[in-house]
């Protein structure tokens, strides 16, 4: 069986974990933001980012370090409802400004680590899911989906207010930060594993340009 690939468009969600929201909240009303976000802050992971299970992430074009973005992607089924979910590694070039769209940070080749397969099920099954992030075998982060700002059903409803998710589309619920606001990072030579009970693990070897 071929490893899973998204059939549709993959969307990501920014600032959807309470820890990062709280760290940002004092700055949200300052320039250039001027106000806290009202709508979900979303972005697109384009098809060139899809990195199927078993493929390495090659850091190139001047990128030497990447943020690890452990997330759960909700996969839309033929009836337009969530049919399953997948662990994903939503890699990004570390960036501290959330003002402009993150195309150069998030849409590079290979920047979405995919699992072998998705897990069928309903959103309710994953409300208390814990996702472990390991770098070279060492646990560097535990992501708890109870810490979402917009719980998954609410996020789906808010997104669906203006864009209809199509069969095959994937909506990632967000990535959490560490206590200091950064995300765990990886560089060439690292092996990164994202795992959770009941899900196919996303394992990526990070390589550098020779």
């Amino acid at each position, binding site marked *: 069986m071929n490893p899973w*690939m*998204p*059939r*549709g*468009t*993959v*969307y990501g969600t*920014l*600032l959807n974990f309470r820890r990062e929201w709280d760290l940002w909240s004092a700055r949200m009303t300052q320039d*250039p*933001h*001027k*106000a806290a*976000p*009202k*709508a979900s*802050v*979303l*972005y*697109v992971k*384009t*098809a*060139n980012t*899809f990195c199927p299970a078993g493929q390495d992430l090659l850091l190139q*074009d001047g990128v030497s370090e990447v943020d690890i973005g452990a997330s759960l992607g909700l996969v839309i089924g033929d009836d337009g409802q969530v049919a399953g979910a997948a662990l994903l590694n939503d890699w990004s070039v570390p960036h501290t400004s*959330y*003002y*402009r*769209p*993150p*195309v*150069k940070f998030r*849409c*590079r*080749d290979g920047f979405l680590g995919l699992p072998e397969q998705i897990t069928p099920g309903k959103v309710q099954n994953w409300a208390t899911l814990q996702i472990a992030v390991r770098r070279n075998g060492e646990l560097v982060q535990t992501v708890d989906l109870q810490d979402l700002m917009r719980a998954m059903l609410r996020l789906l409803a808010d997104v669906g207010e*203006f*864009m*209809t*998710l*199509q069969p095959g*589309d994937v909506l990632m619920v967000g990535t959490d930060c560490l206590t200091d606001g950064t995300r765990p990072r990886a560089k060439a030579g690292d092996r990164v594993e994202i795992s959770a009970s009941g899900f196919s693990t996303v394992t990526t070897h990070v390589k550098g340009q020779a």
Partner: protein
Amino acid sequence: MKHARIAWSGAIQQAVEADGQLLITQGPHKGRRVGFDEVVWLPPLSPVPQARTVIALGLNYADHAKELAFKAPEEPLAFMKGEASLIGHKALTKRPADVQYMHYECELAVVIGRTARHVKKADAYEYIAGYTVANDYAIRDYLENWYRPNLRVKNRDTCTPIGPWLVDAADVPNPMALKLQTTVNGKVTQSGSTADMIFDVPTLIEYFSSFMTLNPGDLILTGTPDGIVDCQPGDVIVTEIEGIGALTNTIVSA
């Protein structure tokens, strides 16, 4: 050649423009001519095996950047859209009831023809399949300064009409000198030239392909010039680019 993708006689058909009609080029109706008003116009894009990358540019005309009170950007201001926001020629676009300012954006849309990675500006035209017209509507009420322009402004259902034609690149000798014009209910409200882009098409292809792979069928919507106005339900908006086509759209209330 001007290519269209249409629904007619219970199926999707490939067609080309021929003497003011659509000439079906494939399948059981090959050779049949049908009128522009007899068909449903779909986005003039062949299906692609994975999600189509739809890149859009903000502030890519000096006058529009000024109009929106920004200084011209030093590198392209790009955002991504989902393919589901695309609709065809002569379609309906929804305006929410509670908004004050929804405007069109007439844009030259570039369709990629070959896999592009690390392409030099001088070679960029070899990677283009053709051109079409896009109307990248925005609802400014929903603008927020987080990954701005945010998806609620720019990735709405029905808010990206595209078409009517995909015009072969070979038939557009200089895409950087085309007149653009928008009319609202027949009155000209926007007028400009692709010559005034800050980052021209070859520069954009070099820029994006420097960090990402562009695949055949991917789109670059290259931004809009000065002259945006609010559109109300019932308004008929025609975004037109010289030699590429005139894309008609009607606003309806949501």
